[in-house]
């Protein structure tokens, strides 16, 4: 299937006066279509790493290759395309817009890019609401949904532009154990049905143990890299 994401000698140092190095010489690559988890103690550098993969942050030194192309050599437009089209993001806090309905939130990334929502996209959004099990409540205001429903909405939103890769930062960090199981099943289902690659930071052993690969980060370094 090929490599979708490759990190080469990534170092990250925060601050200029007082410098803190949080990532040390990270080399990692992820296969397209794989389902991966990243674990590690709080403060070990997981979010920093994920943000660098998602081009939301830049490494101090080192290179990020997405589908073989070096991010450093991309123009701003190309970078915007990568963020919008190739990568979907799911965070611990879903950042849904409360004044919009669930399905409007799902359509938001598309609307931001294309302004006009076509019939095809509308029906794709409906399809994804179905996939995440929310077709019944798709027209409810997002603020009136449960935590698990909101997170599933956020996943549908991450899917709307058909990304090849979903980067999730503790997507179940805020959920009870049943919702966590549901979110996991959903992501796995999407991985299998759509071939979407997943890289998921998680504290939840039920997600990590079912991933095809577990990468453990410790003090900004890869401590362990296990493949099932």
């Amino acid at each position, binding site marked *: 299937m090929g490599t979708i994401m490759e990190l080469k000698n990534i170092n990250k140092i925060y601050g200029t006066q007082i410098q803190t190095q949080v990532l040390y010489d990270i080399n990692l690559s992820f296969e397209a279509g794989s389902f991966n988890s990243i674990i590690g103690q709080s403060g070990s550098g997981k979010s920093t790493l994920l943000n660098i993969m998602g081009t939301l942050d830049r490494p101090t030194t080192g290179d990020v290759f997405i589908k073989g192309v070096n991010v450093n050599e991309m123009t701003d437009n190309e970078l915007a395309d990568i963020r919008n089209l190739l990568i979907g993001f799911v965070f611990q806090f879903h950042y849904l817009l409360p004044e919009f309905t669930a399905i409007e939130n799902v359509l938001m990334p598309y609307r931001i890019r294309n302004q006009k929502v076509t019939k095809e996209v509308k029906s794709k959004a409906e399809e994804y609401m179905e996939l995440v099990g929310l077709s019944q409540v798709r027209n409810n205001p997002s603020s009136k949904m449960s935590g698990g429903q909101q997170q599933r909405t956020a996943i549908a939103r991450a899917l709307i532009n058909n990304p090849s890769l979903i980067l999730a930062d503790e997507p179940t960090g805020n959920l009870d154990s049943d919702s966590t199981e549901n979110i996991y099943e959903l992501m796995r289902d999407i991985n299998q049905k759509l071939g979407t690659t997943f890289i998921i930071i998680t504290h939840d*052993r039920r997600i*990590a*143990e079912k991933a095809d690969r*577990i990468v*453990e980060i410790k003090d900004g370094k890869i401590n*362990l*890299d*296990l493949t*099932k």
Partner: protein
Amino acid sequence: MDERALEFQKYFNDENKEQAVSYILRLLHDKTIDIVSLYELILAPSLNHIMCEHEDERICIWKEHIKSGIVRTIVECAYPFVMEERKMRGVKSSITAVILCPPEEYHDIGARMAADFFTLCGCDAIFVGSNTPYHDFHHAISMIHPDIIAISVSDYYNLVATKRMIEEIRSVLTKHCQIIVGGCAFQRNRQTAIKIGADDYVESFADIERIVRSGVTE
């Protein structure tokens, strides 16, 4: 497949604990099976390939528990035969082996069988078992002075904790001690054993025997 294994499978698949246990005990009494064959040809394969035709995963998990309960009962009942066989083998070793699982590993039957294999090799085998509060064990190391520490891991997620555990154990060891690993977690990827800092990987009685023998000559 072994004839005895086939007969056992019949009872095992029906979750017929009574028949399964008494069938094996009869084999042991009649000396038509030895411990190594029992564990390697019958019990381990049965545990590793538990069939479940149910669609509902929860029912499968429940059935798996019942079946591993059958195996557990058999292994416990086999202990007198383990001691008898050790006597017959006439081997004596000065080696102390501690057998345990990483924290939160609930599958400990493999470890239990491994402990019996160490016993058969003449070792003093100490089965610490599953879900060990290993910090307690950690303190006990200086009392036990093990020559071998064997860690059994089934769930691959537990390899993360196993790596940490091996690092911590090494930091308190004062004499030479081999740390070996085994279990389903390594089945598809044996290099993992080295990756997590173990000295060796074992999957059979022969492997354990080899390690014990090499320990004797050291």
